[in-house]
């Protein structure tokens, strides 16, 4: 199936959950990533049970701490 991940079309296996997609996409430290599916945030406990379908739009959102001040 085709998914749109962070704006880019990606071919992926069928019936992936968000948890398995994070693994398949080799997302580093998936515990740190927030996920939005078709415009709605997905609760972390639902990552294992949310099954993706063709055409889903997924955003992986990453922490960025730096503000370039101090010793960051």
């Amino acid at each position: 199936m085709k998914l749109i991940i962070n704006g880019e079309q990606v071919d992926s296996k069928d019936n992936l959950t968000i948890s398995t997609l994070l693994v398949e996409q080799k997302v580093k430290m998936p515990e740190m990533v927030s996920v939005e599916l078709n415009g709605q945030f997905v609760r972390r406990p639902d990552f294992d049970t949310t099954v993706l379908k063709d055409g889903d739009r997924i955003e992986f959102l990453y922490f960025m701490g730096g503000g370039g001040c101090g010793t960051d």
Partner: protein
Amino acid sequence: MGLTERQIERYSRQIILEKIGGVGQEKLLASKVLIVGAGGLGSPAALYLAAAGVGTIGIVDSDKVDLTNLQRQIIHYTNDIGLEKVKSANNKLRALNPDVTVRTYQTRLAAENIAGIIRDYDFVIDGSDNFPAKFLVNDACFFEKIAFSHAGILRFDGQLITVLPDKSTCYRCIFHSPPPVGAVPSCSQAGVFGVLAGVIGSLQATEAIKYLLGIGELLTNTLLTYNVLTMEFRKVKLNRNPNCPLCSKNPTVTELKNEVQPVCDLKRGVR
């Protein structure tokens, strides 16, 4: 209050803009913006806001200028090394524009002092460099109902979002709580491209001025991401999170607290 002839000349290039004009300029001169962190993001933001004639600029920072700052923190110069950052920034802003009143706060923001500081401002720019501060700014702005710009930068990537508390997606809608210490690298560990701070900090100043003037579309419910290497900007639509611990109907964060980053325990998860 009326503009002086010198002011009309100084700001002429933006006064002739239809959406700003003399009325907009007077609004800016009457406005107050607080900048958290006189660092990579805060430097360009402060300079552009002062240049534009934002009448009162507050700057919070507890640090002193360090040699490693100068690669990106353009408000500080080599001969400022060792000087308090708020003093260094104050010197530059006053030299740039005597119309601007600069207020400096040489302190670390904490749950105990932040509300008293931000309360007096119309808009806050978060250019802090650590997660507890970013969550604290988000929460304090929510409780005080002050609009703010959140931003973060790392390596070649930056992102920012504008938050209108209780009206648009907040930082906790996206990230519920700070990541464990060490889970997300800092700029000193992972590096940061200097000009990136200038790009993102300038965008924060843009949002502040638009908010103060009530013009254009703000980056509300929208995270703008930017990558230096691909030169790609992306607007990611982010709807408010019905499970947000702060701004949802059933909040778990109901008062200001000093967030402590848990020690690294990655299996625990953060949401």
